């Protein structure tokens, strides 16, 4: 990284800050008793011997000899005495130290909390001041006091220390780990070499278990290693040898929810492990004004902790927490996002859970750490006594009545009996409205009984004398019933609203999933899954295949369909109506089959079955089910349309391919054929190979005809024949056809008779020419050479008619229509060399112009082929301009 060989600005700044500032050395231990103070004093002594000015700011000797012996050679700054609630406490006299201005000061117990009335509440703040004054400080601390490790230590030692030191204190410090194997430590403890305050002894006994000590030692080792690491990196930063390690950035989202500290500490551990900077983000939502004081205080605590752990604090406004968090994560290019998630499922935490889920759903390229927050049980102790389960409402109702009874009984003398019955309404109404009708009734009966027993004369009996009192008792019950029902109704409405909201969300999700599906199978599976999930019934989808309906999607196990089921499914598919259980049709089936109906018809069938043999669709889910079925149908319709469009595209491409093929045929096949034909004509047909030459000529011509017939027919079938209609004289059409056939018609007698009064008709000259030509050619082929061919153009009843008549064997009986089909030939066709396409082309061309064709047997032998031209094709003339 040669381009990056410049020191980073932050590292330089920190270095500059440190100039003129004292250096801090921390002796870090895993637990009390490892010998931190001892080591500190030893090192102090060494420094002093080396000529440094060393004083002791404060060291607790706890009366131990070895320690006292080590303190003795040092100059000790006198402590400051404070009076607190009648006690005299001593603390380090920071002003005295500052006045003394030693080179090095030894200050024991970094995590110590100063007595009230001191300048700083915490000793680490005193040390900060000393450092700032340019005095080097040596101090000691145990790992459990490190702020970011506080939770972790607490979680396995069950001892939560309140005195913590912010991680930032460690950041610029030299750390020396005082390590002692757990066995040795336990030995020291047992031999009384470790000072332990009496009041904490039992707790500490647990604390000093071997397992705990091992864990603490590991933590301490890791922590020390991290700081060593950090300092090396920083050093590299200053000398420009390395940029920010790994480019990791941590963003922790904090709120006013309880347990925020846990999240922040977890983030800090992550930040340390990744050697990454950390930002604590708080989103001020619009509802922040409504948050409780407790929340605000919690937020303040969380934020100040984050700050003390070295996090950059950020507070951004936003309407949506998730939006703001994600936006900020992008802006900071955060790589790790730390969120808290309450384990509690109660009330307000639901919202937070949604936020977490939402963020999880929407992040990419960002590692999200969700820290489970254990809600402090002590926060709501009364909740432990609140009954749960189906009897909850009743029990609470009874308790409420009992409490009221007790209260009224004690206040009876002062209250008088007057308002007692009214006051009993309170638990009744409350129970009814909170827990519904039944709880209200329980409360009412209990209230009535209690009222009667305790307050109505004769008291302590269930006997009622006065009818008025009976009315009171009845009234209590009536009130309970009415209130209960009202409350129940309101609650039902609320539940309905919630359920419909859930259902809408489910439908929206369903629609989204369906929209993404691209195959029928995928769609079917999604429908099945969602129906199962949302209506809690078994589901399957059936599609039509060549072998009838087939299951395309179902649950894990593919259901076996009985004959009745199958019949019901088919009925539903064929009729587009529901069938099977719960319908009017084929109710013996276990399944209810619902057709997925669309504008394109029924595309599939949805089968539903509830597992316990109940109705296939539970009543309360009926509306949801209908919506699901509608959406499933829509999805199928969309897929079908897409498939159809794809198929149309395929057809279109095939058509254009065929057109290209045709064009190529007509050119590439014709060219060589032209050469062959012309060459054959040019050959000398009088030589010794005259027969061969004639064969070549004939066959070449035949091939030619066949090719052009084939092309014509293909054009017809493609719908590519677009007639160019213009006025035509049938005389011309017939004459040119006969002229073109001069070769085949040589030696044939062709009689042409045309009505001279025939009108002009609108036709395509080329198509009509070909149609007549083919008919005459056909007649020539299928009739003996000595028999005449007649072509007649006349006025028929409905328009002009062209007949081509021959005296051949005639078309076979009953083939009058089929004769115009492709490759249909008369009986004697084999030797006549026709392509079998001629008549099909006649029909195709004629129909393209709006004409019709027909064939018939002639009475005295032979065939008649007719082209009928409709009267609409006749051209009306105004003759004045012509002449």
């Amino acid at each position: 990284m040669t381009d990056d060989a410049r020191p980073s600005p932050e590292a330089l700044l920190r270095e500059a800050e440190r100039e003129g500032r004292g250096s801090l050395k921390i002796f870090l231990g895993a637990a009390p008793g490892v010998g931190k103070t001892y080591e500190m004093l030893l090192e102090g002594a060494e420094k002093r011997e080396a000529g440094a000015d060393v004083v002791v700011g404060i060291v607790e000797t706890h009366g131990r000899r070895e320690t006292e012996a080590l303190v003795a050679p040092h100059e000790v700054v006198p402590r400051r005495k404070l009076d607190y609630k009648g006690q005299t406490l001593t603390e380090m006299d920071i002003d005295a130290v500052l006045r003394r201005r030693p080179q090095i000061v030894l200050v024991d117990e970094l995590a110590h909390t100063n007595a009230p009335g001191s300048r700083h509440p915490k000793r680490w703040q005193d040390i900060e001041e000393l450092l700032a004054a340019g005095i080097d400080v040596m101090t000691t601390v145990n790992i459990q006091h490190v702020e970011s490790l506080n939770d972790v230590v607490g979680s396995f030692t069950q001892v939560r220390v309140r005195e913590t030191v912010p991680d930032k204190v460690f950041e610029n410090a030299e750390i020396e780990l005082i390590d002692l194997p757990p066995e040795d430590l336990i030995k020291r403890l047992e031999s009384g070499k470790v000072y332990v305050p009496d009041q904490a002894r039992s707790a500490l006994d647990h604390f000093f278990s071997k397992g705990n000590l091992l864990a603490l030692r590991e933590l301490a080792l890791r922590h020390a290693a991290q700081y060593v690491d950090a300092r090396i990196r920083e050093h590299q930063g200053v000398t420009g040898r390395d940029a920010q390690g790994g480019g990791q950035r941590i963003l922790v989202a904090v709120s006013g929810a309880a347990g925020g500290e846990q999240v922040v500490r977890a983030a800090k551990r992550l930040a340390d492990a990744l050697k990454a900077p950390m930002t604590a983000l708080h989103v001020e939502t619009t509802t922040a004004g409504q948050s409780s004081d407790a929340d605000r205080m919690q937020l303040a605590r969380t934020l100040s902790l984050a700050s003390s752990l070295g996090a950059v604090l950020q507070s951004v406004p936003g309407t949506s927490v998730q939006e703001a968090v994600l936006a900020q994560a992008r802006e900071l290019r955060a790589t790790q996002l730390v969120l808290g998630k309450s384990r509690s499922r109660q009330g307000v935490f639901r919202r937070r859970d949604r936020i977490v889920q939402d963020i999880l759903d929407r992040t990419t390229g960002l590692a999200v750490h969700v820290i489970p927050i254990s809600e402090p049980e002590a926060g709501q102790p009364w909740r432990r006594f609140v009954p749960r389960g189906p009897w909850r409402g009743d029990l609470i109702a009874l308790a409420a009545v009992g409490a009221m009874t007790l209260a009224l009984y004690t206040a009876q003398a002062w209250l008088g009996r007057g308002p007692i019955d009214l006051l009993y309404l309170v638990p009744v109404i409350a129970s009814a409205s909170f827990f519904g009708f039944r709880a209200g009734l329980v409360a009412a009966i209990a209230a009535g009984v209690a009222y009667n027993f305790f307050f109505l004369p004769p008291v302590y009996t269930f006997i009622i004398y006065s009818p008025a009192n009976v009315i009171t008792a009845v009234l209590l019950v009536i009130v309970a019933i009415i209130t209960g029902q009202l409350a129940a109704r309101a609650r039902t409405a609320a539940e309905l609203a919630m359920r419909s909201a859930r259902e809408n969300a489910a439908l929206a999700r369903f629609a989204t999933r369906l929209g993404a599906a691209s195959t029928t199978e995928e769609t079917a599976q999604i429908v099945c899954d969602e129906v199962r999930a949302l209506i809690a019934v078994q589901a399957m989808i059936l599609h039509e295949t060549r072998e009838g309906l087939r299951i395309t999607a179902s649950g894990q196990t593919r259901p076996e369909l009985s004959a009745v089921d199958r019949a019901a499914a088919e009925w539903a598919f064929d009729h587009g109506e529901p069938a099977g259980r719960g319908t009017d049709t084929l109710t013996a089936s276990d399944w209810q089959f619902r057709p997925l109906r669309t504008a394109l018809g029924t595309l599939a069938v949805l089968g539903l079955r509830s597992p316990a043999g109940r109705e296939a669709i539970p009543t309360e889910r009926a509306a949801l089910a209908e919506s699901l079925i509608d959406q499933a149908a829509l999805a199928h319709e969309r897929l079908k349309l897409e498939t159809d469009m794809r198929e149309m595209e395929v057809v279109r491409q095939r058509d254009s391919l065929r057109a290209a093929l045709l064009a190529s045929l007509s050119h590439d096949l014709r060219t060589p054929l032209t050469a062959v034909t012309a060459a054959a004509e040019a050959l000398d047909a009088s030589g010794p190979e005259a027969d061969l030459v004639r064969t070549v000529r004939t066959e070449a011509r035949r091939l030619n005809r066949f090719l052009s017939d084939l092309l014509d027919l293909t054009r017809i079938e493609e719908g590519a024949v677009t007639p160019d209609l213009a006025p035509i004289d049938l005389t011309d059409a017939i004459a040119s056809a006969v002229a073109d056939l001069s070769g085949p018609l040589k030696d044939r007698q062709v009689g042409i008779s045309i009505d001279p009064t025939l009108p002009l008709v609108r036709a395509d000259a080329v198509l009509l020419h070909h149609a007549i030509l083919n008919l005459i050619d056909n007649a020539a082929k299928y009739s003996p050479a000595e028999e005449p061919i007649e072509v007649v153009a006349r006025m028929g009843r409905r328009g002009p008619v062209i007949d081509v008549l021959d005296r051949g064997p005639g078309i076979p009986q009953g083939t009058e229509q089929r004769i115009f089909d492709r490759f249909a030939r008369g009986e004697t066709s084999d030797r006549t060399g026709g392509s079998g396409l001629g008549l099909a082309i006649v029909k195709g061309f004629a129909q393209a112009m709006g004409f019709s064709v027909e064939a018939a047997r002639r009475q005295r032998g032979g065939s008649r082929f007719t082209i009928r031209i409709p009267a609409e094709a006749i051209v009306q003339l105004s003759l004045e301009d012509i002449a």
Partner: protein
Amino acid sequence: MSGRILIVDDEMPIRRLLRVSTERCGYETEEAATAAAALKALAVRPPRLVLLDLGLPDRDGLELIGPFRERGVPIIVLTARQGSAEKVAALDLGADDYVTKPFDSEELLARIRSCLRRADRSGGMARKIVVGRVEIDLDAHSIRKSGVEVKLTPKEFDLLAQIAAHPGKVLTHTHLLREVWGPAHTDRIEYLRVTVRSLRKKLEDDPASPTLLQNEPGIGYRLSETTSRGG
């Protein structure tokens, strides 16, 4: 008969066939496979006649009609397409005749002869024509059938004059309508059909089997040079 014929076609077998057929009848030939080669040949030495394939690789054959026309070279167009549009376009641009592939050599040679005959005629137009029993004297405005004067209306005469002036040449509907009825009536084919019919009634032996005025479907009319149908 002699003269140099330029054969323009991109297909070598067709060129060879055309060369063999025409050389057998005593024509000299020159071949061009592309439009560029054809124009070059035209520039070097205009041929007596050009056989022009419309499907050329480098340019539309129709574009060559103009240049050859300007140098007075008769043009017979070769086309593979069945439809009439391309032929009409070629004729309207000044081509003298067309042959549809596949063609036989006899037919082609007949067209070449007819074309050259018209070209050899001084002034390019025939003034006195005899077809079978019909004699047409355009200068004298005299039409006789079997020696008997036939009375024609002015339009009938104009139309016959147009067709008869170029015996054997196809005259397109558009051309005939423009010359006889004027540019405003070029799409009134029915005028043409009716007038042709009445001409046939006056001149043909059997109007149902006309031999004098030959129809080319979708393209136009030509005056046959002989009364027999040939073959």
